[in-house]
């Protein structure tokens, strides 16, 4: 076998910097995927097991109780009302998973972003690569969740592509917010845990996931306007069973606003931390 020295050509001949300049983000996403797939068993178990168990307990169990006592919710059976919201909540959680501790790990714990930045790629591509993989995971997650919802009779097959794209929009926009937030945290993950406990978890309760928001106190209704999940859920319900919604434009505007603000903070902070 040849050794390192006998075949040495030198980087000047070997490396074309245009290639990593063009494909660097994709390489980062692939690396993230390779790392993430080390956990493929729990990922599949969670990806399928979570929606199935959730639908059995909340959707069918609680749903039958709701239907028996209240009849239709928003003009449809409870499970139909619940399904698009669950899909959106799951997408948001997947996006948060891929843009929170992963960022902290890259900057502080393993310094893998610094290793990447020693090569021909830079901070912007690292952030793009992370987001690309987060988007991939959100899409796969949404398709799997969507199929399970169809099998439970909660969705139609036709609505899966549209709902997956909405999930992608929600995941990407909120993912940028979380990526930006995580990129400002140094060393310990306490601030991320706080954000999970006091922002992400309550979001599921205040976004009209399990009930119509119009039945809630006005204060809660106002809080929902700040929740990306509520905007995503409203759009998803409209797409899924045609619920009437006068705020479609604003739902998109708020989601895009979150995404733009998140990206505006995330990219410069990535560059800054990698050049300090």
């Amino acid at each position: 076998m040849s050794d390192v020295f006998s075949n040495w050509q030198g980087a000047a001949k070997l490396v074309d910097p245009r290639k990593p300049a063009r494909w660097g983000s994709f390489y980062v996403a692939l690396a993230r995927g390779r790392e993430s797939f080390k956990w493929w068993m729990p990922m599949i178990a969670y990806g399928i097991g979570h929606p199935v168990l959730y639908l059995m307990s909340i959707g069918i169990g609680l749903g039958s109780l709701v239907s028996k006592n209240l009849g239709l919710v928003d003009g449809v059976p409870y499970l139909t009302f619940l399904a698009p919201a669950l899909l959106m909540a799951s997408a948001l959680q997947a996006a948060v998973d891929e843009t929170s501790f992963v960022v902290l790990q890259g900057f502080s714990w393993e310094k893998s972003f610094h290793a990447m930045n020693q090569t021909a790629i830079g901070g912007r591509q690292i952030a793009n690569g992370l987001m690309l993989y987060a988007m991939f995971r959100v899409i796969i997650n949404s398709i799997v969740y969507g199929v399970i919802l169809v099998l439970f009779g909660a969705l139609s097959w036709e609505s899966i592509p549209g709902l997956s794209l909405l999930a992608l929009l929600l995941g990407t926009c909120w993912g940028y917010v979380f990526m930006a937030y995580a990129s400002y945290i140094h060393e310990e993950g306490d601030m991320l845990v706080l954000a999970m406990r006091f922002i992400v978890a309550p979001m599921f309760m205040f976004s009209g996931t399990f009930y119509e928001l119009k039945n809630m106190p006005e204060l809660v209704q106002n809080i929902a306007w700040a929740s990306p999940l509520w905007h995503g859920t409203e759009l998803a319900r409209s797409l899924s069973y045609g619920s009437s919604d006068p705020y479609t434009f604003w739902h998109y505007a708020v989601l895009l606003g979150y995404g733009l603000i998140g990206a505006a903070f995330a990219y410069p902070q990535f560059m800054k931390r990698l050049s300090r």
Partner: protein
Amino acid sequence: MTKSSEPELVIRAKGLRKTYGDFVAVAGIDFEVKRGEAFGLLGPNGAGKSTTMRMITSTLQRTEGELTILGKDPDKFGPEIRAHLGVVPQQDNLDRQLTVWENILVYGRYFGLSRKFLKNKIEELLAFAQLEEKRNVKSEELSGGMKRRLTIARGLVNEPEILLLDEPTTGLDPQARHVLWDRLFRLKELGVTLVLTTHYMDEAEQLCDRLIVMDKGQIMAEGSPAQLIKDYSSKEVLEVRFGSAGNSNAAKKLQKVGDRIEVLPDRILIYSSNGEKVLEQLTKMGLKPVTSLVRRSSLEDVFLRLTGRTLVD
């Protein structure tokens, strides 16, 4: 020799300065590195070596001054320059979840290298790092020395024009250090420029054609190891110990012995062209050291002379 046949300058720094608020990490230094040269940055912790190294690596922006790497400004052409560099950072930053094999593959892909090329390259690098048996082991399960060897091998995946090594042998056992030195020599023979920081004097003397001695962000001296020793130290050094209580008393009597003396907490260093002769002189003076050692001067002595401190202070 005509000017065109002179080795190309691959690194050029002029007035290079890096500050963090009021703290000056690198205080406006000038140096040049020629292609194929082994260039060292020597100094204690906090001297500014790693900061200088990170600026050369094109991952840390300078505050002031000029810097060109391979003829380009790293602040403007960072990724393009880094495409041709190999970097071995002080702290191993391997991907802990990935195997040894995957760590090199993923890193190679960041340079845009094809899978086909990398398949062979990884085998060569595993042999280089003596990690063939560990190819499928996650990097988090490797020993410290193995991680270091993998980090060094990974830094060669793109066959760099300049290999930057920040404290490369920290954590390696003596045998592994010598193996690495041998391999770095072979890379140098291939025309690879080596830039390394170290606080091991033997390493600097073995590997470097030329080096700068840094302290407090400044260059204290520059030259080849032999030239620096010649300029700043004597040929030999006599090290004597009189016990922690006896050193200071003995030092008073030794003021006129040798070329000069340095009194350290645990020993006295007497600089002279002939250490044995000085030792005889001590005996005649009635001084009986607990231990004595005559050795040749090293870069440690140069550093002591220049800064009044040892490298490990």
